[in-house]
């Protein structure tokens, strides 16, 4: 079975892009969708006849939830004899990245999020192999070009594709790129491309009181321009 990770900020069009991909990919594939609170995308995938599973992270950091479950997702795919598994997760803090070494990593962003967006997104975009830019049909050519350059600056190694998630324009190029990169998942253990943000502090364990007395664990203090630099505790 082959495996691809799809990531991107909420509502940027990941599901639409995957659905359009489904229309042009010839092999049978399934999707595992990761979300925080609720997700209705399973209905959309059901309707398209795509086998799918949903993981709701709830109170846990969604990307940590992703990593600790992805092994089981691969087993689900194998049990169901899928030839390709696509995981779909939203990088909610713009910081995490579900990308795994030697597994094609796609990051979806939309031009409506503003030209500064590519540089604000961390490893999810910076370490992706392929960046898909959606909703380009709604903005001017100039804005598309400016956005593309900001994307290149944020990830100069990436192949960049413009895809219209509604009409499917550009999807063939993406499908071809994924086909070129996809190899079956080997037996050796998977490794993340970069460690996820550390988040072991008192608030992880349910602390609700605000104030330095109550903040313990991995804490980073903010730096103010009129004071000396912040500090890591």
């Amino acid at each position, binding site marked *: 079975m082959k495996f691809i990770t799809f990531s991107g900020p909420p509502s940027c069009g990941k599901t639409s892009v995957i659905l359009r991909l489904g229309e042009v990919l010839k092999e049978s594939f399934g999707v595992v969708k990761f979300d925080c609170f609720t997700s209705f995308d399973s209905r959309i995938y059901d309707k398209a006849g795509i086998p799918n599973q949903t993981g709701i992270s709830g109170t846990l950091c969604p990307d940590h939830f992703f990593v600790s479950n992805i092994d089981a997702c691969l087993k689900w795919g194998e049990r169901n004899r899928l030839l390709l598994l696509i995981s779909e997760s939203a990088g909610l803090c713009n910081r995490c990245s579900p990308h795994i070494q030697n597994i094609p990593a796609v990051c979806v962003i939309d031009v409506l999020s503003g030209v500064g967006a590519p540089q604000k997104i961390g490893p999810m975009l*910076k370490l992706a192999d392929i960046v898909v830019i959606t909703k380009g049909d709604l903005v001017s050519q100039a804005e598309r070009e400016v956005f593309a350059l*900001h994307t290149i600056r944020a990830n100069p*190694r990436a*192949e960049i594709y413009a895809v219209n998630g509604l009409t499917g324009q550009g999807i063939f190029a993406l499908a071809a790129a994924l086909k070129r990169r996809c190899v079956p998942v080997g037996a050796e253990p998977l490794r993340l491309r970069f460690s996820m943000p550390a988040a072991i502090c008192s608030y992880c364990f349910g602390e609700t009181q605000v104030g330095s007395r109550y903040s313990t664990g991995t804490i980073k203090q903010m730096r103010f321009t009129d004071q000396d630099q912040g500090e890591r505790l």
Partner: protein
Amino acid sequence: MNDLLHTPLGRLWDKSPFVADFFAETELAAPDKALTFAEYVQRMDQFQFADCGMSAEQLMEYFTAYIQRLEAIGRKENKEIKSLTILGGRGKSGCPELSEFTVRSGEIACVVGPTGSGKSRLLEDIEYLAQGDTPTGRRILLNGSEPEPHMRWAAEDKPVAQLSQNMNFIMDLSVRDFLMQHAESRLLPENTRQSLVQNVIACANTLTGEPFSDGALITTLSGGQSRALMIADTAILSASPIVLIDEIENAGVDRVLALNMLVKKDKLVFAATHDPLIAMAGTKRIVLNNGGIQRVISPEKAERDNISCLSSIDQKLMRLRALVRAGRQIDFNLEEYFSPQKTDIENFSIYFNEKGEEK
């Protein structure tokens, strides 16, 4: 050995503006310029790596790719595209379409046909530079041969620009700042940016009946002004030699002038349209039916002669729009106004000045 990683940063700094950009954009601490980038990375601690979200190896790869790709964009000379050839595939029912034809730079190819006939599909095939790998099986050749693969995936090498009725400006910027951003994103030499930007604004204002200033916010422009700015910007500031236009009729811009503006910049224009004026202004007309290219018309003299008549009616209509906008009444004899003999508007000088603008 990678020179970028093992040359002291001070030396790179003087040679390439992108080194300073790199440190500014990544929020990395300003380096000691005597160090090489590899040495700089070696001195980083685990927290610094965590903050920038990359390991030492990934940072070095990022740095190298960043400088190399941006330098390549800055150096890039626009490869001239003199012709685009479409090798026909098949229509929706699978029957073969017209086998082959070529459009040259400076030509306008209009794409016509009823809704659902495959106009958008054809534009998509061109945009994708299809190589028999789309449902139509079409192949697109540039300058007579298969395009290089990077033209299909490298965003900066894409030779195709697009304009459509649905496109809007979303940036919160003035016309001037917006165009400067576009010029910057092309990494054009700084001393040429200002004049290019002024040129775009001047050209855009010739296309629309309602001129705008360079300080206006792009999001507040009217439909006609936006379209005019997009067309002038695509003609002058966009590097793409091929321009696809999807139904920009009724936008309140002088369409014939707009097409001519693109053609003068040696763009190769494809315009999907139902508008007789645009269709007649084209040098080729591609007729689509049921997903396939049925035939290609080269307009003959009789049709070309009709352009001036239609264009004069169109301009007269544009002036009426201007009157409506100015709160005036259209209470004069319209039959006389539209009469083909009346090629000028002198009889209506109480409404218009000699440039045709409303008084």
